């Protein structure tokens, strides 16, 4: 199978000399199109750092990340930003929606950054809000929505640019159990497809059932990859 992400011997450390601490140490893995890969582990195990490295946000000290036959860390900073914009969709733990913009405007942001026409971007954003079931709330600011609805707005924003890779950081951390499961159900059913790879960092064992594979990390190292219940 063709890997969506190929990470090889990644290492990231902070500090120097005696203070040198590895956040990610000698990590090699592949993530494939059409799968949901969970990255799990205790706090400080390096999951978020690894997610940042493979999504083009944090430069590793060594190793390579190949996406679409391109070693992304050999690109210039502006090219990496462009790569993130075109290839990666992010759903942040705290959503990071702009409270002063409408939900449609929030969702349209990636398209606007791609320099698409404003009205066209809003139309496309509205379409994606309809897909996530919020077609009747396009004009509302995010603060008027529930936590689950805000999560779906964030998903719509991540999807609107049709990225190959979706990154979810603790997607259910701010949601109750039922809402969390509904969101994951939606992701599994409506977001995942054969041309998309989804990486999810989570502590929440209640949603492990939605994983195709689960990669466990400890002390910056991958200690095991196992098949998820969904496989």
């Amino acid at each position: 199978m063709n890997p969506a992400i190929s990470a090889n011997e990644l290492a990231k450390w902070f500090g120097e000399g005696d203070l040198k601490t590895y956040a990610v140490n000698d990590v090699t893995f592949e993530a494939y199109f059409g799968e949901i890969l969970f990255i799990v582990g205790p706090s400080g195990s390096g999951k978020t750092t690894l997610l940042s490295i493979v999504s083009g946000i944090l430069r590793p000290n060594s190793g390579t990340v190949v996406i679409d036959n391109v070693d992304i860390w050999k690109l210039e900073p502006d090219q990496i930003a462009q790569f993130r914009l075109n290839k990666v969709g992010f759903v942040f733990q705290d959503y990071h929606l702009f409270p002063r913009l409408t939900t449609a405007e929030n969702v349209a942001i990636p398209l606007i950054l791609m320099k698409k026409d404003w009205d066209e971007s809003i139309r496309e954003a509205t379409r994606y809000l309809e897909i996530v079931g919020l077609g009747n709330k396009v004009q509302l600011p995010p603060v008027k929505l529930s936590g689950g609805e805000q999560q779906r707005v964030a998903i719509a924003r991540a999807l609107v640019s049709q990225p190959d890779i979706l990154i979810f950081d603790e997607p259910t951390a701010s949601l109750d159990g039922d809402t969390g499961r509904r969101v994951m159900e939606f992701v599994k059913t409506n977001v995942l497809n054969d041309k998309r790879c989804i990486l999810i960092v989570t502590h929440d064992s209640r949603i492990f059932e939605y994983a195709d594979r689960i990669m466990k990390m400890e002390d910056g190292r991958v200690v095991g990859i196992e098949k998820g219940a969904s496989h």
Partner: protein
Amino acid sequence: MKGILRIAFKLLVNDKGKYAALLVGITFAVFLMVQMTSIFSGILMKSSSTVINLGAQVWVMDPAVNNVASSIPMPDYVLDTVRSIDGVKYAVPLYSGAALVKLRNGIFQSVTVVGLDDNSLFGHPELVEGKIEDIYAENAFIVVEDAEIRKLGYPTVGTDFELNDHRGVIVGIARVAASGLFGIPTLYTTYSKAIQYIPSTRFTISYILVEPKSSDAIPHIQQQVKRLGYEALTKDEFMQKIANYYKYQTGLGTNILIMTVVSFLVGFSVSGQTFYTFILENLEKFGALKAIGAKGSELVYMILFQAMFTAMIGYGLGVGLCTLIITIAKLRIPDYSANITYTTLGFAFFMVLIIAGISSYIGIRKVLKIEPFDIFRG
């Protein structure tokens, strides 16, 4: 408008509380700066009113003179010598002095008396009532119809008064380009009558007004006058000398400068701090934009746009408010000296750009420093 700037615009104006605070800060700063500099400009214009109104190209005076009101009389030979300088088309004497008039109701009132050359009446004001040749009549004076005329009881042609036990009669009412600084009415008469009516020193010529044959002759005239121990200044040079006197020798300029700096600092601290808070509150969102794929330059454009947009709106409001206040003040206080000029507007615009520039610089530094990784780490 580019989409990214439209987002910046919406982020700014939809945060109504902060946007209002930003506008209030900048509007207040602009208002104070324009007000202060306009008052200063008005004072400087009024202090040179005689120079403006008489319109002579070159003024000859004692070098110690630093403003029109403090003339030092010159002997008659200076006039004769100036007339003989190459390049002088003609030169006429001017009397300018203060006097007390006693009105019909018994009230005394200070006035400025301008004595024009008897032969040419060079520099006479435009008459709105009466005929200029009536100035040659016995006891004749022309009164200037400006904000101060009320202090003479709104005289009309034929109104008489006393001036040093001499009878004076108003034969004409004139209009001038600029009224004086000290709130004193102005009377025009002939040079000979002025020195006859007003107690004088041995020398009587306050200024010599020179019309050069051409502007090229002015440097030569100035050089020759300097040889006599006197000073010949062009109209602009004399106005500059007067302005320098008020700016640097009266404390007026320093006070206005201090007030302007305080206005700038108040405006800067209010709007700068508010803008900084605005950036801080949106910092994580800017970080999220970076993570999504916004380039650093795009975030810089957003912040610069927000700062400049606020600055321009605040500038417009500040200038508008100042214009309104000055207009109302002038309607109620006719001799209120404030004058909005392109220079004062340009100065305030420049200062507002500085406020916007520094405010946005602080915000830009903060936004460029934030790493998208920090957003993941929370």
